[in-house]
């Protein structure tokens, strides 16, 4: 199973757009992303479809 850290690479690299469509991240992934969003100031578009 993939580490949630892999979803957050974009945050670490200062991405402006992050599209995780169909990645099956589930609630745990969403929570991890929410935590990253709390301190993020660069991401403008987030796709979690």
């Amino acid at each position, binding site marked *: 199973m*993939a580490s949630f850290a*892999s*979803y957050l*690479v974009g945050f670490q690299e200062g991405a*402006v*757009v992050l599209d*995780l*469509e*169909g*990645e*099956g*991240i*589930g*609630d*745990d*992934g*969403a*929570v991890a*992303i*929410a*935590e990253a*969003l*709390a301190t*993020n*100031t*660069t*991401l*403008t*578009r*987030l*796709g*979690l*479809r």
Partner: protein
Amino acid sequence: MIPIFHSRENGITDTGAAALARVLQSNTSLRYLDLQDNELTDVGAVAMAQGLAGPEGALKTLQLGYNDISVEGAAALLARCHHSPNPNPENDGPLPCSLTSLDLQFNELGPGVADVVVAALRGRGGPLADNSSSSSSSTTGSTTSSTTSNAVPPAGLTTLGLLQTGLGSSGAAVVAEALRTNTVLRSLDLGSNEIGDEGAAALARALQPQQEAGKLASEADDSGNNPSKSALAHLFLFDNGIEEAGAAALASLLTHNEQLTFLDLEENDALDDDDNLEVAASMALIEAGLQRNRKAKINQAAKAIADADAAAAQSAASAAPETVDSSAAASAATTAARASAAVPPCSNAIKLNFEGDGLGDEGAILLLNVLLEAPKSSTTAGVLLPELEVVLDDCGITEAGALRLAECCEAQPRMTQLSLKFNPIFKQSAANFDEGDEDEVGIEESGDVAKGGNGASTSPAAERIETALANNREARSRE
């Protein structure tokens, strides 16, 4: 490397949605959040509604389609999107949120969603809030506006998606009445809602402009409603079972309505009957009305540019020193002031927004002629003229039209931004791409990237546009 799970959706439930909602108020950069096709229920929708920041928040677009949200969840969300910038302080409800676009498509909301849409359009608990005197510097609706960095946008949704939500004809009639007094909502998707001729006619009546509806109101409107002053420009009535009577009502609307520039009537099978002359005549009138309104909007752009240039000149004149002191110190200060006044630090741009107006290549060429007629020098009589920023997203522009726009960007140095997202620019050369069905080109908001939706090769037109805009911005920075 992000792993691939081969799962269409992300499986996010109310728990994940609540976690995301909790950071929305503190996050200052996220403008677009897509949570479509997950497992959100009303609990998640309410959490999102509670998490939305006030009118100065970052988030502008929220996509919640294809979830399990009912009318209760929609009510919570829309209650935060009301068009009331100055709510009654005695009302303990929350301020309007920052959202300007909300999509709830393919959630089973039912006809009851009409009432919550009406409440949002009319403002919380009272009559419609008129945003026409808000801090927005818009001069011609949303066609043009000077970009001012600290302006607080008017509250309320400009785009609402209710595709296949079970609205029905009765719900459409209720929403229609609210549209009469809507001054904010510009795009409404009511596709696949079985509104039929009855719903189409209700919408047509409600969107009649003041002078025409005034005649009707004086004769027969016993509901107390005012004639329409609706700002609605894009109406999607895809797949609604609309037939001859509905088409006739919409044709009558387009004879007088000057706001609508896009009306989607695809997949209403009866309207494709070429043997029905009544339907054909109505469809021709509808198309003629839309074309007329698009041309009028393009003409407004010419006036907006002229007005902005004149305002810049006037601003520079008023900033120039009125008297000259002969002392050495004052002379130096005056010289500096003159230099500053000669080319004032004008950061404003004039933004011409035609998103979703369906201009096509023909309209794009009309527009570029307007752009080329504007003064091409960045300064005139010592005045730095505003930059020209053009939005042509989702306008049906092909590679041929984009090539003409590239020529415009190369010939008009004041052009610094051109957005062409969601246009079929790649279709004509799609055979050259291994990726196949590329049908969109997105020039990112920064104006620095011109890519297809799958990261495919850029089109020749997009590359030329990108190069020209970069050159123009660089030249501008040296002014």
